[in-house]
């Protein structure tokens, strides 16, 4: 990937609200160059979506999130993709990754209650033909989300505010 693209991604991953004009100043490029690069990244699906990182714990309406380790039987023709698709099409599934190691798919789901999540696992996920087993881990607390420390007060306050 071109340096301009990686530089732009670094800035947008920090805060996607930066305008192309501001990014252009930071990277010493023209606004047009930055716009073109961003459009390219979007068109190629490198930038998937611009979104907000939400810390559900701060919301008053409680939701339950879980990581489900799923072991599946891969199919001869399309490996894990077909079964993965069956799973990620469920609305409850927030993220779905193919993993190396002890299990195959890491599935992050969100439900309104413990029961909600349990029902999803027992009624929908486990009953799929190619799913061999599942292990559900409820998420208790999020310390760091997408590279950002969740606790707003957790800034490094050790630095003095004015120095020579």
């Amino acid at each position, binding site marked *: 990937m071109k340096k301009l693209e990686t*530089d732009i991604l670094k800035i947008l991953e920090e805060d996607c609200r930066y305008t192309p004009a501001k990014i252009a*100043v*930071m990277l010493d490029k023209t606004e047009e160059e930055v716009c073109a690069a961003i459009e390219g990244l979007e068109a190629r699906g490198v930038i998937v979506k611009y979104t907000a990182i939400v810390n559900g714990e701060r919301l008053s309406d409680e939701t339950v999130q879980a990581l489900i380790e799923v072991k599946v039987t891969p199919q001869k023709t399309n490996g894990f993709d077909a079964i993965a698709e069956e799973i990620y099409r469920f609305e409850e599934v927030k993220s779905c990754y193919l993993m190396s190691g002890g299990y195959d798919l890491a599935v992050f789901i969100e439900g309104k209650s413990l029961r909600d999540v349990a029902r999803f696992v027992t009624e929908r996920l486990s009953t799929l033909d190619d799913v061999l087993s599942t292990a559900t881990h409820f998420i208790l607390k999020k310390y760091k989300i997408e590279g950002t420390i969740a606790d707003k007060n957790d800034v*490094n306050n050790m630095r003095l505010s004015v*120095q*020579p």
Partner: protein
Amino acid sequence: MRKFVNSRAESIKPSGIRKFFDIVSEMKDAISLGVGEPDFVTPWNIRNAAVKSIQRGYTQYTSNRGLLPLRENIERYMSERFGVSCPAEHTVVTVGASEGIDLALRAVCDIGDEILVPEPSYVSYYPGVQLAGGTPVAVKCVKENGFILTPERLEESITPRTKALILPYPNNPTGGIMTKEQLEAIIPVIEKHDLLVISDEIYAELTYGGTHVSIAALKGMRERTVLISGFSKAFAMTGWRIGFVNAPPEIDDAIFKIHQYVIMCAPTASQYAALEGLKESFSDGFSAVESMRDEYNKRRRFMVDFFNSVGMSCFEPRGAFYVFPSVEELGVTGEQFANSLLRAEKVAVVPGDAFGEAGKYHVRCSYATSMANLDEATSRIAKYVKNLH
């Protein structure tokens, strides 16, 4: 009781920055652009090397000069990065570059010797010279030529009592640097008056759009240059207090004696940490330094563009991590601006006169803070400036 305080200590002024700090530290939600240290944490491998050295029990003094492998690596570092000869046998590892400045001044100054200090510059030179018994003489530099030292300004500041010149580039607070040509232009004046140069190169790794040139690398200058640098800015190691000074043999002898009696040696764990910083950097092409510099550079462009867009003319700094915009067009002094900005919008910038009279109509803004902070601070400053009109 009689007066016990030494008259020199009594006569030096408290730092102008300090006064400001007291106000800021009690203010909630203030954003500070007053910070003079990297906002990065020391790279993990460096921290780990220090932890390991402690675990292994390397807790004794080192040799007075500092660990030989560290001094050898400094020699290689200065030679490969900046083309300067810094023989290990004439290097003293110091408690930050600050100790290096103090050592150099004490080794050189006799009562009444005049030491030239380009202004604006770092707050410690003036009192450092005074405490060493010398007389600091300000050489005023101007924004029109990027706050560099010109041969003309240098020449007219020299008297028969002038002994040395402090050369503080890349410069805190202006961000100004001196190119090879600009340095070469002052060399004839230095040689003509047989001056010593005390070159403080602590920001050497933080230059943008060109590599730092050390005056000690230029013809005939090594033997009349005391070179001071350290690890604080390049490796984000401010709290470790680790730097070095390399001087011509005769001056080095004096520096070494003072260091030996006053300090013994720089902190051992910090020396191991610095050694790791250099070794790792040799093996990976200084990637940690490069990535920090890239990040600073983004912010630097952002800040320069911002100040010029709100009518606070700001020359383009090519070094360190400060911008030094002028507030003259707003009809106020730097101090007035900084005080009222802090009260109105809770953004702390440092009045330029803290760095000498030449900075009176400027403020220093550090961009060693997150882009999010800079974004917020600049919106607040924009609002403040708009209300002034």
